[in-house]
């Protein structure tokens, strides 16, 4: 156990106290506060210390406050507002995605549409869009096609392999499934429809959670399986669990036996104070 035996000489009132005992009233640095600041506000504060600018904005000290230099398309006092170039639906047959480079949006075209605004159409199945040996067949309508996938492969383009599965709650899932249990297509994580959502490509530590410019299912919030946002109408979204397979669990020896061990013999966890969440430097 990590709990060391108590000190036998300890008495409840004999406390160790390590703070310096100087009189606070004699310290001039304590009393020099300005009326607009809270009483305890320090003069030498760095207002940029907690990196108040969102979405990679640069914090600039302005006297006792700060301003944010925001990367496009973000603006606002803390770079919290995104300029939405997708509002007028510039993508005819595709999804409009917010990007951080000019013109601050791009169209993700639905196959076989192409072009900057997804208005042109390629002949379906040329070249073959089906992956992993899938066979493409055209429908009578020119833009329609079907991929016949080899065994164990699935997905519209046979892109989902047999190893595409999740372990536990799927926090570490990095597969390619992009459909929900209701067979709704997932929205891209940088879809303009997700700008107001807590979970999107512009969230803090997005990469750590496997979120980037794609529409694959993920579990960034500790839910019980991977999920994604789906479109309800031109403005609204909702989230749904994904149609992802659970990875087969390897056999564990005598799980029942281990549950019946007496409580007092249970040691503490192997370590304390360590998280499994990766800490990353904040982009400034």
């Amino acid at each position, binding site marked *: 156990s990590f*709990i*060391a035996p108590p000190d036998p000489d300890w008495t409840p009132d004999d406390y160790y106290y390590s703070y310096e005992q100087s009189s606070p009233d004699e310290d001039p640095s304590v009393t020099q506060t300005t009326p607009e600041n809270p009483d305890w506000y320090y003069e030498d504060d760095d207002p940029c210390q907690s990196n108040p600018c969102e979405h990679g904005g640069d914090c600039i000290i302005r006297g006792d406050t700060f301003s944010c230099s925001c990367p496009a398309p973000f603006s606002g006092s803390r770079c919290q507002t995104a300029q939405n170039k997708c509002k007028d639906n510039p993508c005819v047959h595709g999804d409009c995605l917010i990007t951080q480079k000019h013109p601050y949006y791009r169209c993700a075209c639905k196959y076989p549409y192409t072009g900057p605004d997804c208005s042109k159409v390629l002949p379906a199945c040329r070249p073959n869009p089906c992956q992993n040996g899938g066979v493409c067949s055209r429908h009578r309508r020119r833009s329609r096609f079907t991929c016949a996938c080899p065994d164990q492969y699935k997905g519209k383009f046979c892109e989902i392999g047999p190893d595409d599965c999740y372990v536990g709650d799927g926090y570490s899932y990095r597969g390619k499934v992009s459909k929900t249990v209701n067979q709704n297509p997932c929205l891209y994580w940088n879809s303009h429809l997700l700008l107001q959502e807590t979970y999107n490509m512009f969230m803090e530590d997005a990469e750590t959670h496997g979120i980037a410019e794609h529409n694959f299912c993920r579990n960034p919030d500790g839910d019980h399986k991977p999920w994604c946002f789906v479109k309800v109408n031109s403005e609204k979204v909702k989230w749904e669990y994904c149609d992802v397979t659970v990875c087969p669990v390897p056999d564990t020896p005598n799980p029942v036996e281990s549950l019946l061990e007496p409580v007092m013999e249970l040691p503490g966890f192997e370590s304390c104070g360590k*998280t499994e969440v990766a800490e990353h430097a904040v982009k400034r």
Partner: protein
Amino acid sequence: STAGKHPWQVSLQTSLPLTTSMPQGHFCGGALIHPCWVLTAAHCTDINTKHLKVVLGDQDLKKTESHEQTFRVEKILKYSQYNERDEIPHNDIALLKLKPVGGHCALESRYVKTVCLPSDPFPSGTECHISGWGVTETGEGSRQLLDAKVKLIANPLCNSRQLYDHTIDDSMICAGNLQKPGSDTCQGDSGGPLTCEKDGTYYVYGIVSWGQECGKKPGVYTQVTKFLNWIKTTMHREAGL
């Protein structure tokens, strides 16, 4: 916060009616220091154990999350010299002994872990972490676990006339955010941990205790280092070791 960032954070919940609007009967926080032990504030424990539920691994109080672990409390052990004078809690610390389920207490996962007890003091000015589901600017408790960074403030400074005017005793430590408006703990965060990090390891350095309003003056926390022997003695005695 994000899931798994404060895996030692505990939600204390009750079926009794609460004065402030809190999701799911949450009324206080706590910190898991051992699979069977939760450290919290003594002022959070004026409640019968049969009305008390301890939830570990929670993020969204209104969602039943698969990684949640819920326990009843076998025993509440309040520090014997806990008292309140002029509505200010002194020696505000207590331990909750969890009632095992199926022969075990907490099971370690990405979302449930223990926090370390500190052995040395952290210097004032150290940036530490606070977390909880307490009251926000809206006047109501948060459904999602929130967190913030605060800096430790030396007791002499915290005892200055402009701040708490000599009401901070050596069982307490102050911490606040130097930004405007200040990030702070508030009602419903009580009992939760103030953690400080050293070499990638988090230590529970304070327990959310009290403060004047929220976000205007520093928060006041129970100084955990002062109670290390009591914590260890109590756990060893109760475990029969």
